[in-house]
């Protein structure tokens, strides 16, 4: 049986791993190497490394940094931030990335998704969508450039578009929920998950472990991701797996850790 994936998201800002709050405030965590080593050795199923200042500063993703963190990363590594053309993808993959995440460039030029998936296979191409709820319209809008630029695109429609262009997965992040600890935006998550036939990864807002469970059961996500909750909390990935398993969701259990009896954060 296919397992529900638990993904650790590492947010890189000026080459430092940070906790992000509302896409506006950032708390430094530390070097990428150390953060990577922690999550790769815990029970996390995949790592998503995103450089949120690469596009803004018009620079490419950091080849040396990807190479150094991927060296001891034996779970899949997705790299995003500053990916604008096929050459950028080639560099990131050559440095050790397994998958590539495209965000702003997909909005500017959807044909890039097609080119990328033709060249590298759709399973290699993740499209990230940063969405914000529009109360007046009761729908969600997609934002580019690290949540700064409104695109006018409606989330569900955009998800269908990126699927049609050949995206292999969608990484759906809620700007409203980012760092708020009040859970995933389950409404948009469910609507997007049900609208496409490619896997949808939920991100943004996990504050307690039960939020992961809700993301799967109510949001219908194929995989659940979080960033902040995994920092400064020893073995939090293992606790997350315990929660998912106790809710009857199939997960991969791989360490010698005991999964029973975790309930301290309710």
């Amino acid at each position, binding site marked *: *049986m*296919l*397992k*529900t*994936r638990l993904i650790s998201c590492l947010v890189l800002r000026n080459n430092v791993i940070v906790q992000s709050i509302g896409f506006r405030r950032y708390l430094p965590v530390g070097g990428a190497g150390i953060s990577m080593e922690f999550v790769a050795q815990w029970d996390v*199923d995949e790592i998503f490394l995103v450089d949120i200042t690469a596009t803004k500063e018009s620079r490419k993703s950091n080849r040396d940094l990807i*190479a150094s963190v*991927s*060296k*001891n*990363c*034996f*779970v*899949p*590594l997705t790299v995003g931030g500053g990916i604008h053309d096929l050459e950028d993808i080639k560099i990131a*993959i*050559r*440095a*050790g*990335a*397994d*998958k590539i995440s495209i965000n702003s460039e997909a909005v500017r030029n959807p044909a890039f998704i097609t080119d990328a998936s*033709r*060249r*590298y*296979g*759709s*399973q*290699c191409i993740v499209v990230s969508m940063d969405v914000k709820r529009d109360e007046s319209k009761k729908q969600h809008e997609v934002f580019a450039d690290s949540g700064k630029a409104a695109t006018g695109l409606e989330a569900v429609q955009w998800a269908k578009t990126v699927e049609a262009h050949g995206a*292999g*997965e969608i990484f759906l992040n809620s700007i409203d929920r980012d760092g708020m600890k009040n859970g995933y935006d389950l409404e948009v998550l469910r609507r997007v998950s049900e609208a496409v*036939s*490619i*896997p949808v990864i939920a991100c943004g807002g996990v504050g307690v472990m039960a939020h992961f469970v809700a993301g799967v059961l109510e949001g219908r996500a*194929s*995989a659940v991701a979080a960033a902040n909750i995994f920092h400064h909390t020893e073995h939090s990935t293992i606790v997350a797996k315990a929660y998912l398993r106790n809710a009857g969701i199939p997960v*991969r*259990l*791989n360490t010698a850790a005991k999964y029973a009896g975790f309930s301290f954060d309710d």
Partner: protein
Amino acid sequence: MNDKLFVIVDYGMGNIQSVLNAFAHLQCRAILSQAERDLEKADAIILPGVGAFGEAMSHLRELGLIKALNRNVLKRKKPFLGICLGMQLIGLDSTENGKYEGLGWIPGHVRLIAVPGGWKLPHIGWNEIRITGETPLFESIQNDFNFYFVHSFQMECADRYVVARCNYGVEIAAAVQHENIFATQFHPEKSQENGLRLLRNFIHQVQARERRLC
């Protein structure tokens, strides 16, 4: 340090650095190469790959590697490990984006996974395999048999080649073996402890072969 030379075929497709990282982690002398002469020197050949079948075959052809692969794997019987697309390429043909001929080492056809309605493709994530044939690949792996898969196409071939299967709405060939030819649809280099264990088992095969020849 293991003195055997593991040549990872670099034909411009996919996450080969990850494969090199894994062999390096296991203290192997491994190199990425697209040179025919390195295939001749190799003690073992690894064909990784993520991407489209047709493009991969045309890269191998343009690099002039097909004859060298056939000679070293089929004739000289060097241990071979195909990973993901590298497993599919040893089949007879594929219908990914058209119809393309493969290396034809195992009489299998690469076809889109015929998932039931509502099942998502690509098949991405950790799935449990069942061992269905004789193989040293899974020695010492206990309890947890999850490996990381990411693919939309799969090899359809006779049961006698299939040494492990998994289920994703339909049965999927997770690993095949024929004499010195080993291949996995999943990514051992990205399957944490289980994957490293499998690679170690492959490395042991390479070492054992040398001892037999002595």
